[in-house]
């Protein structure tokens, strides 16, 4: 595969997507990040690097992933024809592996022997631990203690894969705090360590690099849709935490002006301070963790607590390119609540025999709620970013509790 077909869409100018992005980092990290950017820009044009990543994606991850024509779901929605991009069928069970392998190869190329990563739901931590096991790299994963509790199975998976999982009990004990701690680790050891950031967030070049490693999702889906349906979809729908699966599937459709791009945020319990993670519904522009983007913050610029039933969407900022797509009107960002996501989680299981991750269930929830908007002859492409095995226990507890209250 030629580099030009791999990467190619507009690079951010000076690290900025319009007014969003940039590189707001402590001085110690400036040089390591500049070195990372330089190496990445070289690697993505190096046929050997591209071929090695392609080999791993094909034979190790199991790409390409299927595009599933979800007929019973489509009938239940009463709207268009719904196609599911099955990232849940990748090795390790979520799209995160696409980026983890790309960055781990890059780290290896830079001679770094140690990887640090943050994780929310645990999927990126598992993907990082997997990539490190495969390439023989040391792996340290920072995870909020609240998330370790919610995603105990993934903690054990990471340890089985040889990673060290470090609990973070500062702040809200979730993804944001894990990122702070991973950055603190990197500041102390920039020479031998690569920070394997898992979403399209953080300082430049991470939002660009993560998008490009995830853009394989959209490239495949576009090709598959043309082959199966004979035309492009009318809308592409994905959940948005930091936004890596969404930017990965949007990427191939950005220039198709007639394709509506929809990123679904976590509405939590309600759009009330501390009870949700819908940055576009309740946030404002600010600088957090190296990038200027939409952030949930109070009137003095302190970051607000967030809530979502899904750990992977429970984050106060959104990737800077999404802020740009929202501001320019190219993409729209509605939200689905916890209750709607839980309902979608169960409906997809019963209608299609697919148990999605609670994160991905937010995208399904949007379709269940809004498919009618698009009419019967439309095609809706939905990214099932991960599988739901990790969430089964959480959902069981919530449903049991709900039953108890109801009776």
């Amino acid at each position, binding site marked *: 595969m030629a580099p030009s077909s791999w990467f190619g869409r507009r690079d951010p100018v000076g690290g900025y997507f319009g007014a969003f992005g940039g590189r707001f980092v*402590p001085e110690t990290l400036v040089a390591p990040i500049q070195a990372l950017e330089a190496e990445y820009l070289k690697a993505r044009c190096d046929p050997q690097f591209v071929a090695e990543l392609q080999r791993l994606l094909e034979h190790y991850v199991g790409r390409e992933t299927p595009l599933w024509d979800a007929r019973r779901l489509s009938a239940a929605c009463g709207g268009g024809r719904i196609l599911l991009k099955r990232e849940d069928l990748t090795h390790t069970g979520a799209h995160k592996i696409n980026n983890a392998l790309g960055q781990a190869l890059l780290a290896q190329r830079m001679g770094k022997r140690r990887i640090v990563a943050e994780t929310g739901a645990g999927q990126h931590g598992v993907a990082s631990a997997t990539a490190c096991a495969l390439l023989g790299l040391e792996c340290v994963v920072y995870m909020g203690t609240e998330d370790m509790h919610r995603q105990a199975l993934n903690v054990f998976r990471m340890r089985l894969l040889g990673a060290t999982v470090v609990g973070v009990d500062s702040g809200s004990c979730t993804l944001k705090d894990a990122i702070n701690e991973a950055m603190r680790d990197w500041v*102390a050891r920039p020479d031998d360590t690569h920070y394997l950031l898992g979403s399209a967030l953080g300082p430049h070049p991470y939002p660009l690099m993560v998008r490009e490693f995830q853009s394989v999702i959209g490239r495949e889906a576009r090709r598959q849709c043309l082959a199966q349906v004979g035309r492009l979809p009318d809308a592409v729908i994905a959940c948005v935490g930091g936004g890596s699966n969404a930017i990965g599937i949007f990427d191939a459709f950005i220039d198709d002006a007639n394709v509506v791009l929809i990123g679904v945020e976590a509405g939590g319990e309600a759009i009330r301070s501390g009870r949700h993670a819908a940055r576009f519904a309740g946030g404002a522009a600010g*600088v957090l963790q190296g990038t200027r983007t939409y952030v949930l913050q109070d009137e003095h610029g302190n970051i607000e607590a967030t809530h979502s039933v899904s750990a992977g969407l429970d984050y106060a900022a959104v990737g800077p390119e999404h802020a740009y797509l929202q501001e320019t009107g190219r993409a729209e960002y509605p939200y689905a609540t916890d209750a709607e996501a839980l309902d979608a989680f169960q409906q997809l299981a019963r209608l299609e025999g697919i148990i999605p991750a609670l994160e991905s269930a937010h995208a399904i929830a949007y379709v269940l709620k809004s498919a009618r908007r698009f009419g019967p002859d439309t095609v809706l492409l939905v990214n099932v970013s991960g599988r739901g095995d990790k969430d089964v226990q959480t959902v069981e507890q919530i449903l049991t509790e709900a039953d108890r209250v109801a009776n």
Partner: protein
Amino acid sequence: MSRISERFKALRARHETGLVTYITAGDPDLERTAGIMKRLDKAGADVIELGVPFSDPLADGPVIQRATERALAAGTTLPKVLAMLAGIRADISAPVVIFSYANPILRMGLDRFVEGARQAGVDGVLTLDMPPEEGEAFRSAFTGAGIETIFLLSPTTTVERIRKASELGSGFLYGISRLGVTGVRDTVDDSARELAERVKAETAMPLALGFGLSRPEHVKAVGQWADAAVVGSALVKVIAEHGQAPGLLDEVERYVRWLRN
């Protein structure tokens, strides 16, 4: 000449090592911060760095993280910090530098912050996550109000970027003497000396070296290579230990006098 430049000029003339002290504003509360600042000044601090508490201090170690949490819990905000400073500025002769992450300043609004800082008698601003490449809007707004822009240098900073920081910054340069987040260490790293030598080869601007210093011998060691030593986490620890006790101010003054010996 600015207050910061005057202070460093006088130190050089006396061949003395300066002492830059960092405290987190609002720990344990702003009233006591005001008292602490007066004692730091009385005990001979050459520059007082006033940290603005922020919910996500990703360049700070546990000591300053905890101080930040206490300050936020006490209701400390950037406008309140400036108001406190305005009230006591006339009582303090040392230059005062605001030490902040970018977001509290952006949220307050750059123009509003600069006006508040000017009125409060702020001499310089150091924004931790705003390297020179991103900091032009801040720098030009500060310069317009006669406020110095202080930049950080680290062992990973290249020669080109040392030059950039010394061209764009003013007052003094703050050298991070070792890798990692803020926090107390037992010894002064070799990297401190290496950094100082690289900086001195590029610029005559005064250099303060910090990160991990806690004892008079550290201050002396740093004095061989730099104009001043920065003591932060160790001082914040003294404040944490005596936070609610009536002897807090005396302990702070005693500690700083000990450092100067």
